[in-house]
């Protein structure tokens, strides 16, 4: 099992956002309340699956789905890189009719300066053995305090999805979904995903292995 590297601030040697931004971007670095969490970029098969469903449900709305972009939670003095997030469109100021290149430049700047500041409607993390504590304890508390309305934890090991919804400032369990159960959201009202469809990659792979 990989263990996540955590660089902790001390009284003598506090880590600042400026220090954090100097880190190379070959790994996923996140700055949460004075500590830096370093983990590997690993391919996730659930991200494109989720993108498909979320995009479809988000049709014609004022929200934008973003992946692997640095997010600055100013009130929490933290910068995270959620695997997926749904943010208010108004929070991104691009010239109207902007080209793909302008969009790339914008994303590049946002990543370089870590200054993309918004409170997303929804954040998705694909958890792993490596990031387990960060996703379930550290980020749970961070996203709750930051006021992010919905937090999804996707677990490819147990093929389950846990959805937390903010009610009066506290996350309450909206549901833990497995197998044939339909995942729903309080934000994207038309959204319905059969849980096992998110993990199709694994069932395909298993059947391929079984055939061999």
């Amino acid at each position, binding site marked *: 099992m990989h263990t996540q590297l955590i660089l902790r601030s001390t009284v003598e040697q506090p880590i600042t956002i400026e220090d954090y931004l100097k880190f190379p971007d070959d790994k996923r670095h996140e700055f949460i309340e004075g500590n830096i969490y370093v983990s590997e970029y690993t391919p996730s098969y659930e991200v494109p699956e989720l993108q498909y469903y979320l995009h479809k449900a988000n049709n014609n709305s004022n929200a934008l789905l973003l992946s692997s972009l640095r997010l600055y939670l100013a009130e929490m003095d933290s910068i995270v890189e959620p695997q997926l997030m749904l943010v208010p469109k108004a929070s991104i100021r691009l010239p109207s009719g902007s080209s793909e290149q302008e969009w790339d430049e914008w994303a590049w700047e946002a990543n370089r300066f870590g200054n993309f500041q918004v409170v997303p409607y929804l954040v998705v993390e694909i958890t792993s053995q490596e990031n387990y*504590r960060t996703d379930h304890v550290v980020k749970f508390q961070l996203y709750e305090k930051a006021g992010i309305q919905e937090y999804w934890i996707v677990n490819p090991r147990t093929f389950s999805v846990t959805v937390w919804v903010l009610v009066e400032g506290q996350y309450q369990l909206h549901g833990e979904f*497995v197998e044939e159960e339909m995942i729903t959201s309080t934000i994207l009202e038309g959204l319905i995903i059969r849980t096992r469809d998110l993990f199709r990659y694994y069932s395909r792979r298993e059947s391929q292995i079984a055939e061999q």
Partner: protein
Amino acid sequence: MTITITQPKTWTYDDYLALPENDGNRYEIIEGVLYTTPMPPTGDHQVAVYELGRQLGNFVVDHDLGYVLGAPFGVHLSEETRPVEPDLLFIRKERWQQNLKFFKGAPDLVVEILSNSTRRLDRNVKFDAYEKAGVPEYWIINPVSLSVEIWVLEEEKYQFKGEFTGTDVIHSTVLQGFEVVTKSIFRR
């Protein structure tokens, strides 16, 4: 079914003693906050309690290590956090006394089985309380995703030892030599 969290009054053990008995609720006070969990839990919850309790109990009795208990049994972690009632706990025999009404101190191992109503409590509030009190090993069992998480205290912080599913064999740090096949806990 939801947990009721009663604030802002700071609850004391005397307040706890004044609460109704056998009214179908589990009452716990953690850092002066009262948590009320409606009972009874589901069948899947109880299967996991009994099955893991049985396997842990057999090992502990066979090796004469101490006592495995199930809720309801009160644990007093501190002045502000008492009682809590873990689903399962293990206490070494050196620390056990006959005729205890409750146990004072940190159990050597605590197990909580998640339910929809206790999820937040087990994952956050109790997690912090057990960590702070110095419970050396904490198991969180999820009867929905059929998985078990193991957390072990190292330098006063819980370190994640893994999430186990299916035929994964779980080992305990506190109970050296104990092993259990994950799915057997759920009778699958």
